[in-house]
């Protein structure tokens, strides 16, 4: 074990790996500053860049970014009072209060150091998990692995924020979407409508960037300028560093909570940080200053949100169940390299695992160091309104999604999924189970097929670990039932520590969520789901028995869950709130943004990517974002030059149009 760990460290001495790690850290820090991107955005945007790299280099890049996203997202929370990601909103409580008192540097140094320690402790947790889980993982055969995939999707669905029914429905929709393409067992095409393009299945990058990235852009472009002023960087770094040392026990507790929250699928950084904050408040004797600039309110949550990402990797790498959205994408990437997480990773690719751990730890330290150096400059970036960042992000995201198969169809899929992602977000349906379902669909089917053909009957259900997983599967269902009974009896007034309520937050979700909850929109989500599952059930009747097995199961369960949701929505119809002006405005902005995206893509198909960007970006900036002419010109020129230079720097293809 030590040998592999040391040889993995040795391999990091290669300049190419170290360079990738540094690029990843820099990219992660920048993306952490941009509101709404977070770890999901960072991995999704960098993923296409890694196509064609060796797995080691690709992981150095991605882990470098993932490890530091939560280090820099603190900057805007502390200086602007507007969190860069949902998980930083906890830090905002005490951090912004401290900054307004002229102690911004104290708050930031506490946060950076805690983030660093959280990352290192998270990496340590990942290291310790390997020897502990190794014998377990090696004893797993296909029945256990199948159960684990089921468990991954359902835990993500149950533990995600909000309505459990919606969570399960989203997980099932993701599974169904993952089955589009060639069946892994019989090699026949499913749900493709005879289209060759869909035969390969949908690209992971297109799905992730659509559901999360584009949906985020559509939600946030309405925000023209940041209303608040930057707090000046006051106070000294030294005081914060010294103070941080006195709170070492908070750091360790916060990190452990973070790892735990990361291991559970669907419980992301946001829930982890709230749990850590709750813990810090609950164990403090003097609660007077919480929310008014208490250092303990910064240290615990900041340690937690970095260790969450490391904790996420434990089930992802060892069992093949992603704990969160970024790790779901990493899992998808592992699978494309032909590395099966779980048994094969602990036997054949142990080096890669240790490399990931080292990358995580080193990136945490380097990230914190760069934050100390770069904060005065980086802080300015947080002032850029999202409407101005939007078109640039859109151009980068679409280009990223194009890299996998170089098919323009992927981009249309992405925009369509962007609309779906936006509707899900606005109606408060969790999107993490959707993506986890999408990634796990094919492994689930493959393991099920193996289980079914290697075992006679249902004997495999009696294997000890299968029983354990079944119990874990049923446990949350009972918990949900208890919760339901409790709300029935209206006992919600006394909810103990409030941990359950706080668990109901998924990662990277902003306050605008649930704007269209209990409206015709959420009713149409239920109707749409029922129609989709009904259609899938009908379509799957044409498949051969092996290929139809799982799609049919998913559609039947989906149909039932969809009908339950439909019933709930109809019952809530009486309490529908009339759409206020704010809602109407948000909906029009979002729909207009998607229309603009469609227009841009149509333009790309005619004149090619570069020309389309040179037309679209200035038009968007001038007429939608109302940016100044000088900004527009510089922005467009820089973006155009970057796109022109990019293909000669890294292997990137630009979509070409009919006119060249």
């Amino acid at each position: 074990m030590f040998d592999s760990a040391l040889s993995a460290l040795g391999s990091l001495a290669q300049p190419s790996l170290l360079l990738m790690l540094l690029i990843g850290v820099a990219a992660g820090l920048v993306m952490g500053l941009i509101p709404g991107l977070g770890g999901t955005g960072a991995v999704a945007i960098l993923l296409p860049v890694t196509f064609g790299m060796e797995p080691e280099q690709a992981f150095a890049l991605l882990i470098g970014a993932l490890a530091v996203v939560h280090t820099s997202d603190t900057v805007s929370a502390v200086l602007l009072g507007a969190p860069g990601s949902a998980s930083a909103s906890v830090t905002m409580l005490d951090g912004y209060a401290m900054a307004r008192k002229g102690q911004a540097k104290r708050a930031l140094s506490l946060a950076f150091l805690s983030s660093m320690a959280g990352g290192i402790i998270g990496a340590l947790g990942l290291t310790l998990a390997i020897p502990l889980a190794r014998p377990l993982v090696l004893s797993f055969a296909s029945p256990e692995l199948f159960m684990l995939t089921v468990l991954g999707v359902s835990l993500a669905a149950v533990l995600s924020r909000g309505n459990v029914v919606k969570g399960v429905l989203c997980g099932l929709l993701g599974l169904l979407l993952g089955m589009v393409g060639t069946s892994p067992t019989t090699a026949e095409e499913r749900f493709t409508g005879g289209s060759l393009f869909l035969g390969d299945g949908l690209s992971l990058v297109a799905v992730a960037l659509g559901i999360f990235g584009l949906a985020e852009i559509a939600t946030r472009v309405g925000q023209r300028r940041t209303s608040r002023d930057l707090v000046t960087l006051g106070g000294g770094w030294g005081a914060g560093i010294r103070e941080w040392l006195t709170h070492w026990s908070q750091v360790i507790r916060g990190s452990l909570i973070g790892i735990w929250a990361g291991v559970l699928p669907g419980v992301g950084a946001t829930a982890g940080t709230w749990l850590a904050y709750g813990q810090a408040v609950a164990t403090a004797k003097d609660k007077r200053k919480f929310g008014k600039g208490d250092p303990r309110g910064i240290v615990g949550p900041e340690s937690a949100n970095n260790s969450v990402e490391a904790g996420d990797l434990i089930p992802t790498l060892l069992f093949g169940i992603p704990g969160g959205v970024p790790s779901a994408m990493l899992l998808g990437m592992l699978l494309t390299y032909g590395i099966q997480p779980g048994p094969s990773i602990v036997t054949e690719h142990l080096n890669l695992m240790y490399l990931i751990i080292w990358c995580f730890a080193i990136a945490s330290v380097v990230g914190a160091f760069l934050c100390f150096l770069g904060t005065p400059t980086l802080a300015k970036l947080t002032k850029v309104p999202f409407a101005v960042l939007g078109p640039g992000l859109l151009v980068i995201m679409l280009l990223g999604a194009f890299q996998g198969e170089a098919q323009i169809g992927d981009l249309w899929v992405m925009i369509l999924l962007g609309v779906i992602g936006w509707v899900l977000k606005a109606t408060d349906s969790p999107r993490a189970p959707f993506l986890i379902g999408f990634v796990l669909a094919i492994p689930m089917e493959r393991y099920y097929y193996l289980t079914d053909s290697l075992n006679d009957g249902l004997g495999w259900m009696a294997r000890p670990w299968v029983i354990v997983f079944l119990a874990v599967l049923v446990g949350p269902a009972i918990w949900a039932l208890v919760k339901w009974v409790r709300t029935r009896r209206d006992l919600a007034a006394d909810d103990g520590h409030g941990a359950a309520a706080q668990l109901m937050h998924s990662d990277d979700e902003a306050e605008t969520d649930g704007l269209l909850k209990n409206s015709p929109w959420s009713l149409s989500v239920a109707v749409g789901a029922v129609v989709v599952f009904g259609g899938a059930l009908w379509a799957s009747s044409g498949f051969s028995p092996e290929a139809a097995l799982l799609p049919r199961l998913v559609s039947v369960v989906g149909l039932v869950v969809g009908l339950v949701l439909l019933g709930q929505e109809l019952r809530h119809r009486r309490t529908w709130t009339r759409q206020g002006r704010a809602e109407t405005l948000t909906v029009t902005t979002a729909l207009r943004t998607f229309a603009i995206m469609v227009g841009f893509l149509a333009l790309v198909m005619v004149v090619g990517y570069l020309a389309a960007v040179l037309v679209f970006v200035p038009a968007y900036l001038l007429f939608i974002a109302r940016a100044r002419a000088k900004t527009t010109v510089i922005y467009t020129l820089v973006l155009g030059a970057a796109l022109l230079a990019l293909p000669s720097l890294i292997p990137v293809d630009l979509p070409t149009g009919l006119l060249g």
Partner: protein
Amino acid sequence: MTVVAVHSATEPGRAALAHAGREALRTGDHLVVVDGDPRRRAAGVEEIVDELGETARRMEEAGLTVSLGHSPLTDASDAVVQIAQQHDARLIVLGLRHRSPVGKLILGSTAQRILLEATCPVLAVKA
């Protein structure tokens, strides 16, 4: 000095508020009302004064104020303890109701955590 009342739109919550009002009047303290159920819309000062009725009128005559306590903390028990500490409260008044042992095991108890963690005397009112 102040008295902190943990109020909610339930039987124990109303009992606690009524008792806290009488207590504040008796000892000449200001009354700070904290909502014990952060997930519902908190009652406004007018509603609280309405609910206190006669007590509120007499408090006003005596120059005593009724105000709402706000806390950024999401957990009700932490919020109550924090507000009491910030106001340097003399007393916290809260309502109790019957809970089965299993109910307590699963759900924990806001009241119990306030009782254990408060740094001032706590008066528990049975409803």
